[in-house]
């Protein structure tokens, strides 16, 4: 049985929150470079160049790449032979977020009450925390700083099984079309198919944690990812919706078994600032 201290989790989470906002992943930077070579629109090229320059400034000056430093979303893989001492896992993560957002001069973007919009605490908490119990004695924490603009354009629909793969594709393409400039393209499109109502949304979110360029292991799903990527990039929306051939940097699909009567499809859009970090304890 491995033991991990509460304080260690706080420190690691604090660091992850700052690094996620300052250091854009190399997978995203590489995707910008690849897109720049293919982009046909002059404005589109100009935007991609500015995004690369922006990522450089953020990294070198230790400032957030975007003022929307997001809601911190965690997927935690907790080994069942791992024991956390000194406090609750959820509290440790939230304390780490509070510390990281304070020390990193990151924006607090959470209101306490969704309807009255009351904002009493200055912290960027509570975080969204998903825990998966797994084999082994490791604690793996995946963190994402998820922006509001792209989250707002995300969708979920309970399709009919008879809608088939064409129905799934059309729903995805329609979501990207409707989102247009609002979701800050070029996008990473995360899709969850199957499970049930809430599970499809979780799968869509989880797919965004996969690095850009990593395909689903199932052949028919990786082919669907490729096909959708091509079609989305033919929509013409382009960088920032100002026209061009780069609308998506990647398309990711996760699937799960579902009810005989159901075909749940959830689409979670991520802006180009696809900020993900991972720590293994």
């Amino acid at each position, binding site marked *: 049985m491995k033991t991990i201290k509460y304080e260690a989790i706080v420190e690691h989470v604090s660091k992850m929150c700052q690094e996620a906002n300052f250091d854009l992943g190399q997978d995203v930077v590489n995707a910008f470079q690849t897109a720049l070579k293919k982009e046909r*629109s002059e404005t589109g090229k100009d935007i991609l160049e500015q995004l690369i320059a*922006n990522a450089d*400034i953020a990294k070198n000056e230790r*400032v957030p790449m*975007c003022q929307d430093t997001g809601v911190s979303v965690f997927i935690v893989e907790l080994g069942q032979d791992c024991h956390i001492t000194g406090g609750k896992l959820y509290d440790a993560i939230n304390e780490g977020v509070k510390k990281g957002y304070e020390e990193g001069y990151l924006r607090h973007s959470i209101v306490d009450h969704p309807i009255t919009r009351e904002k009493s605490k200055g912290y960027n908490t509570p975080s969204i925390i998903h825990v998966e119990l797994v084999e082994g004695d490791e604690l793996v924490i995946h963190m994402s700083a998820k922006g509001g603009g792209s989250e707002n354009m995300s969708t979920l629909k309970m399709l009919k099984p008879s809608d088939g793969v064409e129905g799934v594709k059309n729903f995805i393409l329609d979501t990207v079309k409707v989102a247009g400039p609002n979701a800050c393209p070029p996008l990473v499109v995360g899709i969850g198919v199957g499970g049930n109502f809430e599970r499809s949304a979780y799968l869509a979110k989880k797919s965004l944690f996969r690095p850009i360029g990593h395909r689903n292991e199932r052949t028919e799903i990786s082919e669907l990812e490729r096909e959708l990527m091509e079609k989305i990039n033919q*929509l*013409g929306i382009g960088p920032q*919706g*100002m*026209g061009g051939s780069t609308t998506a940097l990647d398309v990711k699909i996760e699937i799960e078994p579902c009810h005989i009567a159901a075909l749940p499809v959830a689409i979670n859009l991520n802006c180009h600032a696809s900020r993900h970090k991972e720590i293994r304890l």
Partner: protein
Amino acid sequence: MGAIQLSCPISDEEIRTLKAGDRVLLSGTIYTARDAAHKRMSEALQNGEELPIQIAGQVIYYVGPTPAKPGQVIGSAGPTTSGRMDKYTPALLELGLKGMIGKGYRSDEVVESIKKNKAVYFGAIGGSGALIARTIKSSEVIAYEDLGPEAIYKLEVKEFPAVVIIDSEGNDWYEIGKQQYQSY
């Protein structure tokens, strides 16, 4: 084609020459306001009160920056989604607001009001907050200080990069730009 240099506030003649798709570099004075400040301005107008800024002729930037680090003029300061301000915008355009900087679609009512009042809507690059912050040379809270990042700030900018999305004739670059590259 190079970018057009514009000074803010922007003159009516200059606004008339701007066309959807033009790349511009903005220099001069602009004001920030996002959701909460718009709501307060709207309530002030409903109550027959004066607005905290003289809005006629001015440019508003939809932004809620990150806190400035010691020594910084402002934190990261990219645009937020403009559509959330649509409900409040026609009333401000009627009072003479001439320019808006943000990102994303505007409602039909806002487009009509832009045409009627001969104004302009610029798109800045969402998610380039660190780069845009470099073009902001000074920042001063003017009103609603209690709103923190959502307060109204007066900014002096130099060569702030943007694109004309909706010009004073109502042409929409999101539509025009997309059609040029659409093949599916």
